[in-house]
């Protein structure tokens, strides 16, 4: 029955190789946490000297986790996992599917747990009682007639748990598959988008290549809010998505709550004030019409449909953590132009002969968005799920098998109850004892 296996197969199927690879991976992983990653070549020369830096270059230490030799270790681990799984699968599968009613009777005598009873009743008379005892204790059984009038019952629980091991090992390969899909088909990018600006592309990280989105994204507003003690509470970007020039979605992005749209995910990453530029919002009281403008100091803005012109003519720097103050000039050609000072982010009411206007001025920000497209991420998540389920099965569930054999022995009938579990033997022993009690207390068996 035993197949000759070639030595290469044996090598890749071995647990020794797995242990070796895991230990090397553990040690190698330390390197990248101690030596700073993704620095310029000059950094390493300065830090470690030219000779060591040269060695680092050969070994790709600056991007160690993407280096040829680290990838090689991961490939080695994968091959090891695949070969080992294929190697062990047939034996495990046969444990799952095996016909346990064909088990050799001699082997039953050598089971981990066993108990014998005797009765005057014949095997056929008590067969029904035994089946119901087993079923009532949660062991639904199958039955087979054996030689010399004997009857064998078999019941098992958790035979599928034998495959938990395969699940855990496969999960790692599934996660790797997801990672490879992500690396090859996905990308990461960034976008600095000033308030009111629109973009139909992003810039790929690393290469800075312009990548089209296939739709447009506009930053309507970026807001930071603070707690009383001054630490940041929220970074929020209000976004409008546009397709073919039409607004299709208005939403906001905050840290920990990204926007998913057409396979892209937009994350709030950072922000930047743009020097000398401001975001103004103006609303006309009687018509409720409103407009947002991006403006520069000293440069007038015209709200043409309303016949209004205004501008920032002076700025006062904040004193001791206070707010910026802006001097505004405003004209509507219906009365004398006015000018006044106002606080940043505050709203002022400008009263005019025919109506009033509400004006807000604040610093203009660019929001920094991080964009990810990763079609492999669901593979990774499925892998995570399989791994946890598999680990639970491997560690906490067991395959429990139970046989009851009734056979003739010297004018009497011998009942052999026996079984075994591949793990959690203590729990199995409890179950077994409970079952034995059921046998002992049953009147239909007429135990002697």
């Amino acid at each position, binding site marked *: 029955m035993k197949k000759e296996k070639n030595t290469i197969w044996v090598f890749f199927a071995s647990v020794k190789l797995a242990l070796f690879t*895991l*230990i090397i991976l553990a040690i190698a992983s330390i390197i990248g946490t101690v030596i700073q990653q993704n620095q310029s070549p000059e950094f390493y020369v300065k830090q470690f000297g030219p000779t060591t830096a040269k060695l680092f270059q050969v070994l790709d230490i600056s991007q160690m986790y993407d280096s040829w030799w680290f990838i090689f270790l991961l490939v080695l681990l994968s091959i090891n996992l695949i070969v080992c799984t294929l190697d062990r699968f047939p034996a495990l599968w046969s444990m799952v599917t095996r016909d346990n009613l064909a088990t050799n009777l001699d082997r039953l005598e050598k089971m981990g747990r066993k108990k014998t009873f005797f009765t005057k009743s014949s095997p056929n008379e008590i067969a029904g009682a035994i089946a119901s005892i087993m079923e009532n204790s949660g062991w639904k059984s199958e039955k087979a007639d054996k030689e010399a009038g004997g009857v064998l019952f078999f019941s098992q629980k958790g035979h599928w748990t034998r495959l938990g091991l395969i699940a855990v090992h496969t999960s790692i390969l599934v996660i790797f598959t997801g990672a490879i899909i992500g690396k090859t088909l996905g990308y990461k990018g960034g976008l600095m988008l000033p308030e009111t600006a629109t973009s139909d592309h992003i810039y790929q990280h690393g290469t800075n290549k312009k990548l089209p989105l296939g739709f447009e994204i506009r930053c309507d507003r970026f807001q930071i809010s603070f707690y009383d003690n001054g630490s940041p509470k929220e970074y929020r970007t209000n976004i409008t998505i546009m397709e073919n020039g039409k607004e299709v979605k208005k939403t906001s992005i905050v840290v920990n709550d990204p926007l998913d749209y057409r396979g892209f995910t937009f994350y709030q990453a950072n922000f930047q004030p743009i020097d000398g530029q401001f975001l103004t919002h103006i609303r006309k009281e009687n018509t409720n019409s409103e407009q947002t403008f991006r403006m520069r100091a000293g440069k007038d803005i015209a709200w043409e449909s309303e016949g209004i012109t205004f501008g920032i003519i002076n700025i006062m720097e904040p004193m001791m953590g206070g707010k910026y103050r802006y001097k505004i000039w405003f004209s509507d050609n219906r009365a004398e132009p006015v000018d006044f000072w106002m606080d940043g982010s505050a709203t002022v009411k400008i009263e005019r002969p025919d109506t009033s206007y509400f004006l807000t001025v604040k610093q203009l920000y660019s929001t920094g968005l991080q964009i990810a497209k990763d079609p492999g991420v669901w593979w990774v998540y499925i892998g995570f799920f399989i791994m946890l389920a598999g680990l639970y099965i491997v560690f906490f569930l067991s395959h429990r098998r139970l046989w009851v054999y009734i056979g003739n022995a010297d004018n009497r009938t011998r009942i052999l109850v026996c079984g075994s579990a591949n793990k959690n033997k203590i729990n199995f022993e409890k179950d077994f004892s409970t079952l034995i009690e059921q046998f002992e207390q049953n009147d239909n068996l007429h135990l002697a």
Partner: protein
Amino acid sequence: MNSSQLLTYCTFTYLLASILYVAVFLFRAHKIGIIATICTVLGFLMQTVGIGLRWAESYQMGYGHAPLTNMYESLVFFSWSIILFYLGLELKFKNRLIGAFATPFAVASMALAALGMPDEIRPLVPALQSNWLIIHVVTCFIGYAALAVACGLGVMYLLKFYIGKPASQPDNQGSLIGSLPPLKIIDDITYKSIVFGFLWLSAGIITGAIWANSAWGTYWSWDPKETWSLISWFVYAVALHARFVRGWGGRRIAWLAIIGFIAVIFTYFGVNYLLSGLHSYA
């Protein structure tokens, strides 16, 4: 009474409990064992109320977040998890001698929190405002707690193995070390703790990865904290394979339980204080 006071009382109760457990071991004073257990349970109740109170206090301050957001809070939760796991072991295996090797970890964790970490309740920075915070921290620390106890058990094993076993009379009941559980039992509990801890460590790494993906768009970025958690995972994976397939047990598993926990501790502290990365908060 506020949470800080309650947690201070808890620290001293744990200290007393661990002294009692050590006394049970050193002087074979098994009669005081029950007092040690009562102290531990009492401390645990105080700590549970203390953590709950701190949670409520953060709401009163208008911040409203689970007390799992900085080094102080995580140390308190670490010690809480250790005690919970230990009490479970004591109940299951009916052995108080493990207490002498497990509760000191909880005392050390509380002492470090009290002496070395600022305990003010601070508002949650945007990066931590996520439901994943609780899930990630809880899964990690259940794992860490089990692995801490596994380390204590490893120490217990080695102590018994190297000091307590005269060649002529293994498991001598009369001697100090001889009163420890038989090597086979220590080995079994160590292994079970590692298994439990490994499952939760895996869950902790996974929930961290999912959180990272929902916050930054990358489930794995080889940041030092991530990498070190993976290194710990490798160590325990090695231990489990060596045991399952190559039949390793006893001394070697005891050593791996200790080495693994050193990696865990480095993941927890070392990375924050010695290396730089994304996990700058806790």
